[in-house]
């Protein structure tokens, strides 16, 4: 039963995962953390960090990890297969139809206008993660280390395009020093 659930959840994520890895993360987070309670928001943040530090697509890394947590090795294989299945089927149609209509106005406009919604999806993922478990020192004293880490990371990655992996490593060192 848990295997079927896992498979169906990741099938859904694969089918509706428009807009790349981060948009999928928000869908994964909603299903895995909020709806099914397979892991906590802190664990989810850890998995995202681990996925960033290992090679390969973030969504597959994440699916493998969550699948293992929920259903062992079989679970991890099921989840990572399910997440790519929908695009496997879709791509067949696309290769036959869409490629011949690359300049199709309706398809192009629809996908362009979808972007603001996808951005909202990713915002929601970040908002959901701004909780007491990920920012445990907020409101306890005057040294809000976790907020400073978050703000500095944001400035570095958004304005200065610093490599995310380097930032994760620095944040990890900051964790040892300040916590």
């Amino acid at each position, binding site marked *: 039963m848990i295997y079927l659930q896992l498979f169906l959840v990741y099938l859904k994520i694969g089918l509706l995962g428009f807009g790349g890895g981060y948009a999928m993360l928000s869908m994964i987070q909603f299903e895995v953390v909020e709806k099914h309670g397979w892991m906590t928001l802190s664990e989810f943040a850890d998995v995202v960090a681990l996925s960033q530090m290992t090679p390969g697509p973030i969504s597959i890394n994440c699916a493998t990890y969550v699948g293992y947590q929920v259903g062992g090795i079989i679970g991890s294989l099921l989840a990572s297969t399910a997440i790519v299945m929908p695009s496997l089927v879709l791509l067949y149609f696309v290769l036959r139809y869409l490629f011949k209509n690359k300049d199709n106005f309706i398809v192009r406009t629809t996908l362009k*206008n979808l972007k603001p919604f996808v951005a909202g999806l990713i915002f929601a993922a970040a908002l959901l993660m701004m909780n007491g478990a990920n920012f445990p020192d907020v409101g306890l004293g005057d040294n809000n280390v976790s907020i400073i880490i978050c703000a500095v*990371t944001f400035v570095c990655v958004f304005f200065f395009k610093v490599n995310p992996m380097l930032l994760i490593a620095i944040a990890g060192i900051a964790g040892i020093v300040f916590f």
Partner: protein
Amino acid sequence: MKICWQLFVTFLNIGAFTLGGGYAMLDMIERAVVKRRRWIEHGEFWESIAVVQSLPGVFAVNCALYVGYRIGGTKGAIAASLGAMLPSIVIMLFIAIFFTDYKDNPTVEKIFRGIRPCVVALILSPALKMCISAKVNWKTAIFPIGTALLIWWFKISPAYIILFAIIVCLIHAILIGNVE
């Protein structure tokens, strides 16, 4: 058969050695497929990638599927996408198995307490960048903000929202398509 093996090995390499997710892999794919192996011409590759990019699912695997299908048909598609997926599955499985043993180690716990707020910022950044690339202004900001609030505050599934958004955008596109 030989081409399938080549596809598998090429994408296995890309999957095993590219850090940083889908878009970092795209650069490696172009180098291998267009420049080194000369399987697909430069112009055709980028035109097709633009289409592949708009599909749902895992971007890097979709790219592998497209290249595999284009070069070796159905078998090629399977070989290439398996190659692209296999390294992340194997590596992540090892981490999942061993991370659970070290999770409660005090030092590891401290490291991850530092990393968690950093991850929040790493997710926030692409959301803002996507707003900028979609040319969101003060009026259209209602769409990303509304979407985020519906999920975050009202706990509505992102799946419903994206389905709804696809329908609305499709109708809108059909309507303005007819006007032009």
